[in-house]
Every structure is written in structure tokens, then in C-alpha cells.
């Protein structure tokens, strides 16, 4: 038996009624106290409690800028040669100890 469009409409009507029937449910009273207990545990919504919400709101606003800055720094880091502090200091001090220490690693 294949359902026609009218049959389907009729079934949907019945399902709608069943759906609205579901809302008639009895819920105990304990959940009220549990919620209040959880909320007290979280603390009042004063300035401190708002901290996370404010951070959450503003973080996403500045996130694209932070990502852009990180990309620029990353690109610069790739393009600029790195020189270790030891090598850098050797350029200025001309200390033979530095070169021998470095050489010993590669020998």
C-alpha cells in the first residue's frame, strides 16, 4: 500500500497531535534545588564572574587580528636568517673559545 499525498497529510496531522501530547509530562521538584545549588557553586554574576563571558566575547573579536600578527611574524621568521646567541657574541668578542666549542660539535 503506497501512501498518497492526502494520506501523508493525514499521518502528519496525527503525528503533530502525538508530538504536542508529549509536552504533558510531570517533572519532580528536586531539579529546582539542584539548579540553585549549581548556580551557587558558580558564584554571583558580579564583575569577576563576568570575566569569562567578557573574555569570550572580546577574544573572538580580536582573534583575526592576533592570527594576522602571528602570520606576519611567522613569515618574517622564515625570511630572516637565524643566528644563535653564541655565534652572534663571537662576532663581537672574537673569542677563540667559541669557535672551538662550536667546531667540537661538528667534528
Amino acid at each position: 500500500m503506497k501512501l498518497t499525498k492526502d494520506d501523508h497529510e493525514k499521518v502528519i496531522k496525527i503525528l503533530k497531535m502525538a508530538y504536542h501530547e508529549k509536552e504533558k509530562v510531570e517533572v519532580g521538584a528536586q531539579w529546582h534545588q539542584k539548579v540553585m545549588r549549581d548556580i551557587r557553586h558558580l558564584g554571583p554574576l558580579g564583575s569577576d564572574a563576568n570575566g569569562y563571558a567578557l573574555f569570550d566575547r572580546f577574544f573572538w573579536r580580536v582573534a583575526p587580528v592576533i592570527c594576522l600578527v602571528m602570520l606576519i611574524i611567522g613569515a618574517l621568521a622564515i625570511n630572516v636568517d637565524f643566528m644563535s646567541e653564541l655565534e652572534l657574541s663571537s662576532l663581537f668578542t672574537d673569542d677563540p673559545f667559541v669557535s672551538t666549542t662550536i667546531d667540537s660539535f661538528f667534528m
Partner: protein
Amino acid sequence: MEKDTDRFEDVEIVDRVMNGDINAFAHLMTRHKENVIKIVARHLPHQQVEETVQDVFVRAYQSLPTLKRKDGFKQWLATIARRTCHDFWRTRYRTQELPMSSLTDHHRSWLAQVIATESGEALFTKGRQKEAGELLDWGLAQLSADERMILELVHLEGLPGKEVARQLGLSVASVKVRAFRARHKLKKLLNRFMEEG
């Protein structure tokens, strides 16, 4: 219909909660619990209602600093309730903890009777809601979490697509496509079920 005085009272209570008066939140819960319970009960199995209602109010408390229009607390809370139900089903479907109910020949003959009668509603009022509820649960269990929520909100509650999109955080186009797909899928399921008999 929400009265203006109710809105003013909500604004006042929300202000008190925002200023650190935790106990004032109990008044908001008392004022809106019936609406939240109704929403949650429509979407979830009965044994999950109490726990989810708790979740809704705790979420609402945590998100209160983000509430932009304090006079729209009722609608804002309804959105949180629906999104919590949506999250519940997404988690359920992801963890495969979905109980698959099955239908019997009894349901098939009941459905055939519904179709045959001039007014299907008559069968519903004659103490046969159980079959309709089981048929509904069976059909919904075979849809995805998104399709399930959208079918319930668009086709069973009759909310406009734009409102559903806002409540579930989806685009209007996506809601329209999924609503059509969900209804088509349900039709196919019912057809297959009736042909099996």
C-alpha cells in the same frame, strides 16, 4: 501571549541577578519553568526531561551576561532550551546510543485505519495516542539530529524557517533544504513500512 508587565518583571529580575543576587534567579526559574519543560518534553524522551531542564537553566545563568535584550528573556531562554535539546541529539547520534524502536503489524493496521478514516484525528482521541507516539518516535529515530530538530520545529510545531534558523544557529537556506529532505525521508519511511505488510 506575554504581557508587558511580565517583561518588565523579567527585566527587573535579570538586573538583580546580573548585580550578583543569585537568589533572584529562582524567581526567573519559577516564572519560566513551565515553558522550558514543555519545550524540552516535546523534543526529548521523558526520562531525559528533568536533567535537561536543569542544564537549560544552568546554561541560561552562565550566559546571562550575553543577553542583549532583557525584555526578550522568554524567547532567549526558549532558544537556549531548543539548542540544548539539539546538542543532546547530536551527542546521542555521535555516540550511537540511540534506542531503535521497532513497529509491529499492530502499528501497520492502526496506520491503515488512520488513512482509511475520513478524519484521522478521531482515532487519536479514541485512546490510541500510544500508537501515534510510537510511530513518531520510530520515524524521528531514523533521521539525523539536525533533520529531527528541523522536522519537529518546522512541520510539527509550525515555526517559520527564519525563526528555526535563528533558534538553531543555522542559515535559512539550510533549514529549508533540511526541512524538505526530512519530510521526504519520513514519507519514504512510512511508504516502505506500509509496503512491507
